[in-house]
């Protein structure tokens, strides 16, 4: 006998399943199961990865789903009433109450034989959490619709599943599919239905004693699904026929009190009706200890804590994958009441045997190669291939002058491969998209390995010439490759939607869909949700979550343990509540019970020592919590209410008569019977443990940024669809990896902010300077551009603007485009960890000779000076040195990258080494060494084609930054969010390069940032610009300006006369929807008074206040304080009459407007603080300028002077603009510190970070004492001591802290990388 589990939930049941697919597969194999079905709730999210993982591991996969029916089965088929469809819920409003489309009230649907269950009141914890799906929190399974399990028998069955799920989803709202009986009855072809768990309709009826109802339900489903494939119920349901049956009764036993009886009843019914049975275990986790995590995810799903979860939790701990022997020992054991009934025993053993038969009968092949092309229409007489060849030759004549034999040979070769692999249509689809983009002037370019292909180049899909860059076509397509070639096309982020609409229109909505993106738990979300579920006080959870630097949930432990305070804090459970009663009282958290005694110990604060009075985002409550040091949710055995902080009454351990109930004893915690259990761990340890275990758990679905699926067959037959959050948009339940696995064609239409920025820049240049730039024809050898790159003056430049790039550019000194390609490819986590960076840099600087292991490698590795860097190089080594075929070389590259089974590796290893020896005559040792290097590299390989495409864009953006800085800044600002730096850094950088940046002004600014004529240098500034003088370029090696000759040659003469006017859109609160009005009103003429602004813009009062504080109304000519004084009056007059929005205001008595009293003028400090608070930047001065006097007195050096400063001790002051905590740097933290003269990198070694974490995390303005290090032109400050700048400055008579500087915490809180 053998057993297969046919009812199993993975973590794709979204918080109702505690094991990942591979864990289940691994366990099933270990237990010797003959098959495993995945039946997640309402979707097929996990089936593709399940099927492929299982097949690879040698386990038979069964694909299925567990649906929740909307209505109970109506026994008379003729009386099935299609339920009236209620309109989908509109908007996200109505936070409480049952959403339309949710499970209907059970009292109406389960009327027959079932008592109406009272619906539990849903209690909500006040913290806002995005609902994972529709809001079913607090509703027990038993109060929702009945369950039914469906398994796909074959391809037809899979199609039925897809259609059923898609239609139910499209009929419902996001996350709440509507499976009605009528819909189900329409989709039974090829499906096997199992009667379901204890919440299946049959079991529900049996549990309340409604045998007749249960019988009718069983008969009804048997009639729909075909009780037995060979004719029906008259044939006895004995073993052997089960596999052909369409409806099978499920037997489950979880050692619950009623289970013996339920199994016996179901068995009786099966025999009476002649239906087969199957034993399943409704698996929710792979191993017994998974129960704990399952309880935690259930608590998360319901927004409760474990303690308050009550009956929402699964009542048993038995829903793990059980081996056959363990199931066999369940009923009907002799202790079962059914022991006198041989039917039960027979049904149970048959049910076990049937399981593997049914599993074997279910076989679905998830390969849809046949369906992948939607059919591209070509002119009569042409085939897709002939059309493609024609287009290619046309394109080649345009791209290449002259057309060399090398080009023609390569083109012929590629076309031949494309013809043989049948991919012509694919290229035509891409070509068509690019044609559309060109016609609509949407900036677009292909990236990724497609750039290896000359066909893609001549068709205009990519902009990189593969001949010029010596790229390898086989990296893109080869005949040995089984997966689909990947074409990623970047479009201007602003206009990508137009392209997506075009695809929908061209290929039809039935054949087009967006690939989903499965959002998984990240460090912060997992810490928060697990913490709350475990009953930790919410303020504490907040604090812990905010202390995280990592995004990776497995790293949570390492990250928080590094933050010494926490572990220590938690080791002293409950120490202190009272020690700090005064604090708690002050914050309104006083203990109502009044029974706490002072513990007399010093309170510990979570999150380390130092300046820890709370930072941005801390509430009074969280500060109180942390100061009081209440580490856990329990004090003296009493729980603390997570919200209020009040001690709850002691738990009831006795019954009404005061007798102990023995639930929850005293004394030491006993060990759990399960090995991996968290029993016995401290609360803190358990928290960390669950965070690690939830790593990678799917949380919800979102739309993938640009993956579009185009298919020949209707999509609904191939993949399940569901609604996306975006109205009208539909996504496939598979993510991009799944789509690749089932061999469908997917186009990645990505949005790239830089393309939007470059496009706008070019248009502005045309408009402002009457110069028409064709970037395609931009020469590749403009030395001044490379000069700028070598000086690392790259803020805003595509791809090479990050801290790591800026640190290496002066060393790698790129002086041609190929060097830039290397630069783009090499500064990535992989090469950094793989130690490829330093050898390259040393060789580039001439510190180390360029050597090759063997002369045959020289032509392959010459680009990268002998260092293996690109995937194409690995393949070429495999081909030229080791004698692999082109197709095999790609397989070799992939195998190296993914570390397949060691046997496979061993085979490739032998093949490679033997090849090297035989073909190039390498000594065996050298061949081994070469293999080692190739294998070491392969894990972080980067396609050269991709790097080349990006390098070209990086080059173009460098050109624009150098010669048209004003226009480029406008492009960047308007394309936000994008890039590495916030707007403030971009603006300050432009100012340092002498670009006049003009403040926001309601009488001059449009919604978007624009260019504005300020006159050539030396000319007087036009009136009313809002600035007194042009900024002088900063003298610093890191600030490169074009030479007069270069300027004359490469830029228009008028380019230097343009400044940048910041747009109103930068003011917080003014959104896209105000854009049109703001622009129209500006065009109508200047605003003359505050009343005028209020009337014409109709902006909310708070937004107007921000405008005043940003200085946008200064041009009205009234002092700011007066405007603020009047604002409330003017605005309230407007709103009073029109709506009830004036609630809480003084009654408008229609009194004449009051004159503002004589208010003092606003000081510079306050002005700057306001500007930073509202705009996060100031056009006139950088905030550090305010402190310069004090900094001078403190002996601090401006950043621009650091290049001339001797090595050794140094003191600097600045504003933190980015903070990086790269996982590759082993705990080192990098800060980019900006002052008015430039930016400098500050490095904090792990011990320094541990010491100063508190200050650095909570302050944006810092004074750093450290060690200056200079390596060539790269300057670095190693921090020794960091203090908050305002406090240090105050000691030497510095300015008072600008009031808006509090908000600067935001700048410091930004994390990148």
């Amino acid at each position, binding site marked *: 006998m053998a057993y297969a589990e046919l009812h199993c939930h993975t973590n794709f049941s979204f918080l109702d399943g505690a094991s990942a697919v591979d864990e289940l597969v691994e366990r099933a194999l270990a237990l010797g199961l003959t098959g495993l079905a995945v039946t997640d709730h309402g979707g097929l999210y996990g089936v593709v990865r399940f099927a492929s993982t299982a097949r690879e591991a040698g386990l038979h996969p069964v694909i299925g789903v567990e649906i929740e029916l909307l209505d109970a089965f109506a026994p008379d088929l003729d009386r099935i009433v299609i339920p009236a469809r209620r309109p989908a819920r509109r908007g996200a409003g109505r936070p409480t109450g049952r959403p339309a489309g949710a499970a209907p009230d059970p009292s109406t649907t389960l009327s027959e034989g079932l008592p109406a269950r009272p619906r539990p009141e849903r209690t909500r914890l006040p913290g806002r959490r995005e609902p994972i799906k529709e809001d079913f929190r607090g509703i027990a399974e038993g109060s929702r619709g009945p369950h039914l399990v469906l398994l796909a028998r074959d391809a037809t069955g899979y199609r039925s599943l897809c259609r059923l799920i898609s239609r139910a989803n499209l009929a419902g709202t996001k996350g709440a599919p509507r499976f009605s009986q009528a819909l189900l009855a329409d989709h039974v072809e090829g499906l096997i239905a199992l009667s379901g768990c204890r919440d299946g309709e049959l079991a529900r009826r049996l549990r309340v004693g409604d045998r007749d109802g249960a019988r009718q339900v069983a008969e009804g489903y048997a009639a729909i699904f075909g009780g037995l494939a060979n004719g029906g119920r008259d044939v006895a349901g004995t073993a052997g026929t089960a596999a052909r049956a369409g409806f099978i009764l499920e037997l489950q036993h979880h050692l619950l009190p009623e289970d013996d009886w339920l199994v016996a009843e179901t068995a009786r019914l099966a025999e009476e009706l002649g239906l087969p049975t199957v034993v399943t275990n409704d698996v929710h986790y792979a191993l017994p200890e998974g*129960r*704990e995590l399952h309880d935690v995810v259930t608590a998360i799903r319901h927004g409760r804590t474990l303690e308050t979860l009550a009956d929402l939790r699964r009542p048993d*701990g038995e829903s793990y994958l059980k081996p056959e022997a363990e199931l066999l020992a369940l009923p009907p054991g002799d202790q079962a009441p059914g022991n006198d009934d041989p039917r039960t025993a027979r049904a149970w053993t048959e049910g076990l045997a049937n399981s593997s038969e049914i599993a074997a009968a279910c076989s679905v092949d998830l390969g849809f190669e046949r369906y992948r092309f939607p059919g591209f229409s070509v002119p009569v007489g042409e085939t897709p291939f002939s059309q493609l060849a024609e287009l290619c030759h046309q394109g080649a004549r345009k791209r290449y002058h002259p057309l060399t034999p090398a080009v023609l040979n390569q083109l012929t070769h590629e076309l031949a491969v494309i013809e043989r692999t049948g991919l012509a249509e694919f290229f035509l689809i891409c070509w068509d998209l690019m044609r559309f983009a060109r016609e609509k002037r949407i900036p677009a370019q292909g990236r990724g390995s497609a750039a290896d292909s000359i066909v893609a180049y001549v068709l205009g899909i990519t902009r990189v010439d593969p001949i010029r860059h010596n790229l390898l076509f086989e990296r893109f397509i080869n005949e040995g490759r089984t997966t689909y070639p990947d074409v990623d096309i970047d479009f201007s982020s602003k206009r990508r939607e137009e392209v997506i609409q075009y695809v929908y229109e061209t290929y039809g909505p039935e054949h087009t869909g967006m690939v989903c993106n499965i959002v998984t738990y990240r460090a912060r979300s997992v810490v928060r949700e697990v913490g709350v579920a475990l009953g930790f006080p919410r303020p504490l959870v907040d604090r812990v979550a905010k202390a995280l630097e990592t995004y990776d949930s497995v790293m949570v432990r390492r990250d928080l343990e590094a933050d010494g305070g926490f572990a220590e804090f938690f080791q002293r459970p409950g120490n202190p509540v009272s020690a700090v009663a005064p604090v708690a009282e002050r914050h309104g958290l006083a203990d109502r019970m009044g029974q706490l005694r002072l513990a007399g110990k010093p309170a510990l604060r979570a999150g380390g020592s130092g300046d820890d009075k709370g930072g941005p985002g801390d509430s009074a409550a969280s500060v109180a919590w942390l100061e009081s040091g209440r580490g856990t949710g329990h004090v003296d055995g009493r729980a603390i209410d997570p919200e209020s902080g009040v001690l709850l009454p002691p738990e009831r351990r006795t019954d009404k008569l005061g007798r102990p109930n023995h639930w929850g004893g005293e004394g030491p915690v006993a060990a759990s019977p399960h090995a991996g259990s968290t029993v016995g761990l401290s609360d803190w340890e358990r928290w960390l443990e669950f965070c690690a275990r939830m790593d990678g758990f799917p949380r919800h679905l979102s739309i993938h940024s640009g993956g579009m699926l185009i298919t020949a067959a209707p999509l609904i037959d191939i993949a399940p669809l569901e609604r996306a959050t975006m109205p009208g948009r539909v996504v496939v339940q598979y993510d991009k990896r799944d789509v690749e696995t089932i061999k469908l064609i997917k186009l990645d239409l990505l949005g790239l902010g830089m393309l939007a920025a470059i496009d706008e820049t070019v248009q502005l240049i045309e408009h402002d300077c009457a110069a028409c730039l064709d970037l395609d024809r931009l020469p590749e050898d403009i030395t001044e551009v490379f000069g700028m790159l070598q000086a690392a003056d790259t803020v805003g430049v595509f791809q090479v603007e990050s801290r790591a790039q800026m640190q290496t550019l002066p060393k790698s000194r790129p002086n041609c485009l190929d060097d830039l390609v290397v630069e783009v490819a090499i500064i990535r986590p992989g090469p950094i960890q793989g130690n490829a960076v330093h050898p390259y840099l040393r060789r580039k600087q001439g510190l180390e000779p360029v050597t090759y292991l063997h002369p045959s490698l020289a032509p392959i590795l010459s680009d990268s000076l002998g260092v293996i860097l690109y995937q194409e190089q690995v393949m070429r080594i495999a081909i030229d040195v080791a004698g692999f075929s082109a197709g095999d070389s790609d397989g070799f590259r992939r195998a190296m990258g993914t570390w397949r089974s060691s046997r496979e590796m061993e085979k490739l290893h032998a093949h490679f080494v033997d090849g090297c020896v035989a073909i190039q005559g390498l000594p065996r040792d050298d061949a081994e060494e070469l293999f080692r290097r190739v294998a070491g590299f392969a894990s972080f390989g980067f396609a050269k084609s991709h790097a080349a495409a990006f390098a070209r864009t990086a080059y173009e953006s460098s050109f624009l930054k150098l010669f048209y800085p004003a226009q480029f800044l406008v492009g960047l600002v308007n394309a936000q969010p994008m890039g590495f730096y916030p707007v403030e850094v971009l603006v300050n950088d432009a100012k340092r390069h002498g670009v006049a940046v003009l403040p926001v002004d309601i009488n001059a600014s449009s919604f978007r940032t624009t260019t504005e004529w300020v006159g050539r240098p030396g000319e007087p500034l036009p009136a009313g610009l809002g600035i007194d003088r042009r900024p002088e370029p900063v003298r610093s090696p890191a600030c490169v300006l074009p030479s007069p000759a270069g300027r004359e040659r490469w830029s228009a003469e008028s380019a230097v006369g343009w400044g940048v006017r910041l747009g109103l859109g930068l003011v917080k609160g003014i959104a896209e929807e105000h854009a049109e009005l703001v622009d129209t009103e500006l065009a109508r003429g200047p605003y003359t008074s505050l009343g005028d602004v209020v009337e014409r813009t109709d902006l909310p009062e708070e937004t107007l206040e921000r405008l005043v504080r940003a200085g946008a109304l200064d041009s009205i000519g009234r002092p700011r304080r007066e405007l603020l004084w009047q604002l409330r009056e003017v605005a309230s007059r407007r709103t009073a009459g029109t709506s009830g929005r004036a609630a809480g205001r003084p009654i408008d008595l229609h009194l004449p407007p009051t004159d503002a009293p004589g208010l003092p003028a606003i000081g510079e400090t306050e002005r700057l603080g306001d500007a930073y608070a509202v705009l996060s930047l100031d056009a006139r001065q950088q905030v550090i300028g305010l402190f310069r006097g004090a900094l001078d007195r403190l002996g601090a050096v401006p950043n621009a002077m650091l290049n001339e400063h001797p090595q050794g001790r140094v003191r600097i002051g600045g504003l933190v603009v980015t903070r990086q905590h790269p996982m590759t740097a082993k705990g080192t933290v990098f800060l980019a510190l900006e002052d008015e003269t430039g930016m400098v990198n500050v490095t904090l070694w792990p011990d320094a970070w541990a010491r100063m974490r508190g200050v650095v995390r909570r302050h944006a303005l810092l004074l750093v004492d450290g060690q200056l290090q200079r390596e060539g032109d790269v300057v670095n400050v190693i921090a020794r001591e960091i203090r908050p700048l305002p406090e240090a400055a105050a000691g030497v008579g510095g300015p008072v802290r600008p009031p808006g500087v509090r908000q600067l915490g935001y700048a410091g809180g930004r994390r990148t990388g």
Partner: protein
Amino acid sequence: MTRLLREHPLIDAELDPAGRLVAFRWAGRREAVEVCNRWRVDEAWWRQPIARDYFKVVGARWLALVYLDRLDGSWHLERVYD
């Protein structure tokens, strides 16, 4: 009338070779029993774990609820139905 026992006294359980409960001994008296129902309780793992196998048993004199504490393997009598 049901009697809930205050201290859940230890009992000696007699199992047959297949591991099934056939009798138990409490306060010096042996009672041969037959199991009418059984269930498993696995609770409160995050606090003070409880892992018990409950048996509702019937003998000549008593109808009783006994359990096996799966954490330490001891048997207890919890409830006696008169």
